[in-house]
């Protein structure tokens, strides 16, 4: 009855259930922190290029390259259960066929509170392409800065930081300088 094995068994099962309870409680506290991050995005440059994209099936197509001045303060998002914050800038537009598009153009992973104040020129890491391969009939796009929080344990949360107030217009396509 009171063998070493029984004692070991009991204590490990108690320990593991305590640990599970603790982790569950920690993951619940995520819901207590609901501070919002604030920021601003200002378009600096928007170019439509007749691009050759070697990895795409349609090799020649128009692609939009953007630059934004991004300022954001993510420090309110860092609490004791924040492992990292994934910040990303996305374009939202509808094309002439009614297709609703959301395309991420820039992203950054913030892992420390000391890096949480962002002041940068966000050059497009990913170009915007359209299913129709052309941006002639698309007047422009709205851009939104969003975040996605990875916890140490528990639920993933996400939200918006900033949005352009006016439509960011796409200029006419220009030949890519090769």
């Amino acid at each position: 009855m009171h063998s070493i094995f029984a004692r070991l068994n009991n204590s490990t099962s108690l320990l593991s259930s305590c640990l599970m309870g603790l982790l569950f409680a920690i993951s619940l506290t995520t819901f207590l922190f609901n501070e919002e991050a604030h920021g601003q995005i200002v378009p600096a440059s928007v170019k439509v290029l007749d691009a050759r994209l070697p990895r795409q099936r349609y090799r020649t197509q128009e692609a939009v390259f953007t630059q934004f001045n991004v300022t954001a303060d993510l420090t309110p998002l860092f609490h004791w259960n924040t492992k990292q914050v994934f910040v990303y800038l996305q374009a939202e537009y509808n094309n002439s066929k009614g297709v609703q598009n959301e395309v991420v153009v820039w992203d950054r992973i913030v892992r420390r509170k000391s890096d949480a104040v962002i002041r940068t020129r966000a050059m497009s890491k990913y170009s915007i392409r359209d299913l129709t391969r052309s941006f002639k009939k698309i007047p422009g796009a709205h851009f939104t800065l969003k975040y996605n929080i990875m916890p140490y344990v528990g639920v993933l949360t996400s939200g918006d930081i900033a949005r352009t107030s006016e439509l960011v217009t796409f200029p006419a396509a220009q030949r890519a300088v090769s």
Partner: protein
Amino acid sequence: MFEDEIRTIKRLGVRMILLQILNFASVIASGLMIWKGLSLVTNSESPIVVVLSGSMEPAFYRGDLLFLTNPVSELYKTGDITVYKIPGADIPIVHRVMETRDTPIKGWDKLNATTPHPVTQKLLTKGDNNAVDDLDLYQGIEWLERKHIVGKVRGFVPYVGYVTIAMNDFPQLKYALLGGLALLALFQRE
């Protein structure tokens, strides 16, 4: 060495052993029931997955445990971390959605529609730790669609899944564990 055990078996008789086997079977069956029940609730074929690669570092490392849901009522959005399985590929992949293209379905009406949304989604994903998007991983498919997606990551527990990775890397461990459990179930006295 096993005299003690043999003596217990003789003392307990065949019925007792059968009862123990039944107990063991019911434990396995209830585990399976919980798994399938979760699957039904979350609408995902495997609601709990273990991360097998480092392509989502530093968000997820090898051995982390992920909880997925795949509600029919929700469309996928950029920034969501999804688990998808390409037909023909042997392991599911955990990557982030970078592009969504929602094409309206012509003639969709709410009353006799087969899908709850008036759109079909095309998705492009990318691993946080990868330099380029997943086009090369799709094996000829151009866009990811809803049918390829196992679920969206909702919850996260670190390290726990390493047990299964260890069991896959060292199959002996798996057999030892299973055998040990079976023996324990047979010989355990109340």
